[in-house]
């Protein structure tokens, strides 16, 4: 049985949608007269889809879209629009509405739209891991000596996390920054053996050497290996280069006032800030970045805007 919540302060419009749905044996529907009433209904039992008017007293359709997106992100909202509200409808889509149907097309388009939105929603939910059930998985890449490969690699991992609904957008960005620092380190400092001190002392010379070593063996033949391991407890990235490695203990404290005008160590500081753990291998040519899953957040105790770890 598919539960549909129809939200409209106009009884005639609500009834029209209800009449359309009652012809479909699988649909069960109920009404709410405005956004706030709709949220009260949803607190008791979640519908599979919400169909809402835009203009309503107390809480309008836009506010309802934002509230549902925030509190019940798996429930899609379809907006019903009147003449002249196209801009507002567009705004509703930006805020997370799944689709919209003009009121003068309800009879012809509403059922198709509901079916389409539900199909997408169910597909997405089937990809979302329920709490307590986490698939272990691993993705890996091998990067040749080309800085342009770093951004798409990070983008792939961020997409994976988004598809699995594992992180907030802000957290994906933090992980992206840490990965970018780790991959750039592996390429420039690891495989190309370029030192930050050279960049500080001779900026032009540093970039000449970048260009030179990108064409010169053995530097240009070295690869960067990156793996993402996802388990019930954590997200783990392992990045390994084929350079000689380094001793991370020798890096200066990048937060020390005396080091503020130095180049060295800032990337590793950002990795440590944005991940829960950063571990270097003994040889120094492999770094492991760990982000732990938080049980409290899994249970939904903390709101999305406050989430600092993987959900």
């Amino acid at each position: 049985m598919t539960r549909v919540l129809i939200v409209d302060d106009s009884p005639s419009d609500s009834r029209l949608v209800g009449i359309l749905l009652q012809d479909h044996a699988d649909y069960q529907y109920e009404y709410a007269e405005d956004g706030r009433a709709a949220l009260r209904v949803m607190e008791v039992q979640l519908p599979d889809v919400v169909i809402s008017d835009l203009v309503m007293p107390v809480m309008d359709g836009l506010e309802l879209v934002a509230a549902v997106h925030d509190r019940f992100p798996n429930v899609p909202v379809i907006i019903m629009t009147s003449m002249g509200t196209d801009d507002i409808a567009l705004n509703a889509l930006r805020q997370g509405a799944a689709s919209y149907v003009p009121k003068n097309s309800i009879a012809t388009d509403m059922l198709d739209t509901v079916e389409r939105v539900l199909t997408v929603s169910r597909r997405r939910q089937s990809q979302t891991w329920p709490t307590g059930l986490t698939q272990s998985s691993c993705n890996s890449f091998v990067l040749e000596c080309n800085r342009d490969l770093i951004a798409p690699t990070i983008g792939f991992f961020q997409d994976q996390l988004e598809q699995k609904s594992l992180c907030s957008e802000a957290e994906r960005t933090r992980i992206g920054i840490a990965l970018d620092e780790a991959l750039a380190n592996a390429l420039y400092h690891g495989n190309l053996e370029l030192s930050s001190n050279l960049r500080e002392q001779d900026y032009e010379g540093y970039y000449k050497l970048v260009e030179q070593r990108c064409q010169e063996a053995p530097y240009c033949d070295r690869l960067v290996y990156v793996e993402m391991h996802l388990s019930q407890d954590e997200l783990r990235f392992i990045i390994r280069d084929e350079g000689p490695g380094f001793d991370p203990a020798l890096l200066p404290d990048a937060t020390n006032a005396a080091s503020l005008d130095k180049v060295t160590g800032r990337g590793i500081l950002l990795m440590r800030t944005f991940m829960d753990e950063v571990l270097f291998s003994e040889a120094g040519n492999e770094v492991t970045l760990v982000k732990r899953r938080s049980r409290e957040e899994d249970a939904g105790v903390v709101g999305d805007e406050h989430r600092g770890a993987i959900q």
Partner: protein
Amino acid sequence: MTTGQVFELERQGPVLLISPTCNVSSLAEENVKPELDQIFAQLQSPEIKSVVIDFERVNYFGSSMLETLRRMWQQISERGGMMAICNVSEMEREVLHVTRFDTLWPVCGSREDALEKVL
């Protein structure tokens, strides 16, 4: 106004306004270098007394941009000039804070505030 692949440059009297238009970390550092060379050449000009970097169109940056900021600040402050940055996102503010770069130059809420700080 000059618009490059990554940076948009604008003059307001003695101030050079620099607006990154995309996240630098998604580009190879060596590809950004020609534009940076142009910026650093302008910073050498005696007509430029101060610099404002406006991050309104960028959501985040990493150590590569921090290093660029540090060099700009070094170059302008050696000549007695000032630098301010503005319109940073929460993420960028966090990056500036953990690296303590927010102690080196003012981080302002708007371009107007930043211009006021350096003029």
